[in-house]
């Protein structure tokens, strides 16, 4: 089930045509006025990223659309790509005009291979319509085209530098940053990596105007946001909400008012207990790339924590020490809690380890993998601490 999405109301090509008419400087200015931030999770301002790429020097530049959508509980990019692919390609082409790129790559999650034919058909039509290829969108000398590349199922390949490594044919392992992709990306060239949804919004902004976008949401979190909502609720699905919406409102719409907690931002996000449901979904409060998982009253939060930690133990690339070994220790700790053999002292040690992982890991995966564990320990002391050794009745 879904609400009516803005994407259904914006015509394909409209944003791109507008962009082609105004050119690089005005596109960058429009993105700045719209104040749009990345929809992939980190919320990096789009205008800053595009500006950096535009300023970077390189013999060629790339636009990469991150369609790896691997965060547990996220499925909004799938919907966008299957129903509004044109907006995404419009967005990539707009980004290319802004950054001065010649080539686009759509990095498609391996499991989405079933969409490949349809997406290729869209691309073929766009070439026929002059939106791609020589003098794309009628801009003389702007020869932009898009290639689709498939991922192979590693969650970490959604991290932009691991994605680039994967594109280059290497192990999907995040790189050291700096240098950032806008400077040294795919093949060492300046590269813009943006989320599917971000690019589609960019097309809408060009079509409808920056003010329209900026009016929605909060000061720091402009615009609407797609949320993939799943778990213990009556109407799971993809919804569009203005950023700044409270968790309570969201839960009301999806039919989950009895929720005990929600996991916002997927496995790497945080677990918010019912007491905090007035908090806002926004970059300045509870940020999310789009995943919201609802936990009903019957859920055992230790199971929830275990489920997330198992995910990270599987998905860490294994490159850096805190994440490679730390996730395993946290999972072991959860097993010990379940068995009643984890002392309070060791639990404190694990929480402290979690804090180290958050700051010392090399990439966002290890920096956020302890979040769920830490927030569950913090917010559900009765369910967790009650299981520490010596506290079991």
């Amino acid at each position: 089930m879904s609400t009516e999405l803005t994407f259904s109301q914006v015509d394909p090509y409209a944003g791109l045509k507008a962009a082609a008419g105004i050119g690089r400087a005005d596109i960058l200015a429009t993105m700045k006025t719209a104040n749009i931030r990345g929809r992939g999770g980190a919320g990096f301002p789009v205008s800053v990223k595009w500006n950096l790429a535009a300023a970077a020097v390189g013999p060629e530049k790339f636009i990469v659309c991150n369609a790896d959508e691997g965060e547990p509980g996220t499925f909004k990019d799938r919907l966008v790509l299957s129903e509004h692919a044109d907006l995404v390609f419009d967005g990539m082409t707009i980004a290319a005009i802004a950054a001065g790129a010649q080539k686009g790559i759509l990095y498609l999650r391996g499991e989405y291979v079933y969409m490949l034919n349809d997406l290729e058909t869209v691309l073929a039509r766009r070439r026929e319509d002059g939106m791609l290829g020589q003098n794309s969108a009628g801009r003389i000398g702007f020869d932009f085209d898009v290639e689709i590349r498939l991922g192979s199922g590693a969650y970490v390949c959604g991290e932009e530098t691991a994605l680039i490594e994967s594109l280059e044919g290497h192990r999907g392992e995040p790189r050291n940053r700096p240098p950032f992709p806008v400077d040294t990306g795919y093949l060492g060239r300046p590269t813009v990596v943006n989320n599917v949804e971000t690019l589609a919004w960019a097309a809408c902004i060009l079509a409808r105007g920056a003010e329209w976008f900026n009016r929605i949401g909060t000061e720091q979190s402009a615009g609407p946001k797609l949320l993939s909502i799943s778990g213990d609720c009556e109407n799971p699905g993809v919804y569009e909400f203005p950023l700044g919406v409270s968790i309570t409102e969201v839960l009301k719409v999806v039919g989950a008012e009895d929720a005990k907690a929600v996991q916002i931002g997927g496995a790497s996000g945080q677990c918010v207990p019912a007491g905090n449901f007035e908090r806002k979904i926004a970059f300045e409060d509870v940020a999310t790339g789009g995943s919201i998982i609802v936990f009903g009253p019957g859920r055992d939060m230790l199971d929830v924590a275990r489920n997330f930690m198992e995910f990270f133990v599987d998905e860490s690339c294994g490159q850096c020490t805190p994440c490679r070994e730390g996730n395993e220790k946290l999972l072991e700790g959860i097993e010990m809690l379940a068995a009643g053999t984890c002392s309070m002292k060791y639990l404190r040690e694990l929480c402290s380890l979690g804090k180290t992982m958050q700051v010392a890991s090399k990439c966002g995966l290890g920096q956020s993998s302890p979040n769920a564990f830490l927030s569950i320990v913090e917010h559900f002391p009765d369910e967790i601490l009650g299981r520490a050794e010596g506290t079991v009745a």
Partner: protein
Amino acid sequence: MTDNPKDIKSSDRAPKAQRGQVVQKPDGVDAIGAKITVNIDGQDIKVPMGTTILEAARKFGIRIPTLCHHDDLCVAGVCRVCVVEIEGQRALQASCAYPITSPLKIKTHTPQVRRARRHIIDLLLSKHYGECYTCFRNNNCELQSLAKEYGVDFFRFGHPEKPMYEKDNSSYAVVRDMNKCVLCRRCVRTCIDLQEVGVLEAAHRSSDTRIETFLDKPLSDVVCINCGQCINRCPTGALTANDPTDEVWAAIDDPTKHVTIQTAPSPRAGIGECFGLEPGTPMTFEMNTALRRCGFDKVFDTNFTADLTIIEEGTELLLRLYKALVEKDETVALPQFTSCSPGWVKFMEHFYPEMLPNMSSAKSPQQMFGALIKTFYAEQQGIDPSNIVSVALMPCSAKKFECNRPEMTDSGFKDVDYGLTTREMAKMISEAGIHLPDMPKSDFDAPFGTATGSGVIFGATGGVMEAALRSVIELVCGVRAEDLFEHANIIPVRGFEGTRLVELPIENVGPVPDVFKKLVPNWDWLKGATLKVGVCHGTANAKKVLDDIKNGGEFSKCHFIEFMACPGGCLGGGGQPIPTTPEIRAARAEAIYAEDRSYGVRKSHENPVIWELYEKFLTDGPCGHISHKLLHTQYTARGKYI
């Protein structure tokens, strides 16, 4: 390691997973004055743009611990031991991987940083199975030092009680014990980046990550060239050389055995480091005494056969040139490649089998020595060769493989029984209760104790070429090497650039010395020619040179090229003391050149014992029948097969 600025293209035969993660430094920032002031622990420091935080801190004596960082290798940023706090940034940053491009305020040991380091060390120890007492790297282990430095007093996250992996003992050169591996990937980067062999890779993910060979095969079954460079850069005891000291002790303790040891030039320049001396402190004569006290019956100088190599390999080169230039024989393979580095030989056999005809057929000095000890020496001394145990002290792990090659039995026995590394020798010396620096000095034993400065410099990259040129100048041009180069120091072939090209015009020729009279009528055909030679060290550089030859580049015009598998040449060999850095290798090179200068006789062809040997034993002269049987060999085109 610097490369030839002439950016010769190399092919991509090695996997590239960890490559390219180099911190890029903008060109010429010093020139345009692009310096940035950073504040580290309250001190303002001006550094060139692009300097890493680690480099900046080191420059000012601020110590930041490291584990995966190595001065010879590209940045990895994986262990996270070197994290520091940067003001205004939420996460800590790996100082080894963070290039400074803007003014930063950095703190290197805040409570958060110390906690992170301690956690990281604890996490590593929770997966580290090993007992320091029984470990070759005891007291020389970076993990152990870190644990001490950060006051590890208990295993916070546990400690394995039994091994998780089986040791891989299959290779003659390198033993892998992955129970001690901390996944710093230095070995991977060494093998791929430094050597471009690419035997080791990180396999699997997350906590299953392991360093593996192709399909996890034993090291003996993959294309490892035995260079041991990975051992030298491993911070722990996960990689060690295959250690035959027990067998050597057993031979020494067996009264029926006559145990000889030949010692190569590089171990003398390095072994002092194992006894706490500064790198570059030569221990040649102290070591001779120590070896005798350990119980070796004779202590010989491998430099003797280095001189012999020069004569044999030089003769071979002159014959090739004669065939090509005078007899116009187009089948002659030129340039001729040196063959004294067994890692390089195996590299060729695997990766460039089609170019094996270019290899000199001369054996390495170690194997020439082996063949002579169990023939000439045995005969001369009246010892039954089956009672001789011939040991070689080498800076090299590939020498262990070399002496076990099935073809290295031309004496009728295994020509060299055991190859010991510098590190293993230091251990034996310590075991004998000897503190090496305290030893009185003594000389080598006759008859193979006489060598020249030319033999000594075999230890440094460019040394073989310099030795060869000294002799060629004198034997062909009829002038003294000193007349062309001050003190016969042929500086252009020295240095640490990855590849070097040198030209030597032959303006005049002299009379043909007696030993060559059978081979060439005169030298007139060389008059006016320009001898072109190349020097190259590290197999990554070798690859560039070989590809350049194939593409008809500068190196294809060479007549003779020296190749050494190890960066720096033998002095940086896989059997040398750990650690190794560019500075340490430079200090060892200095020790080697100093020893060369100290010799009265500095040219191989002036070694009187060599000519005695040709007179009495190798009676049909250089490259003659007997020498071919004992001192030359043939190679196996292995390709990807073993």
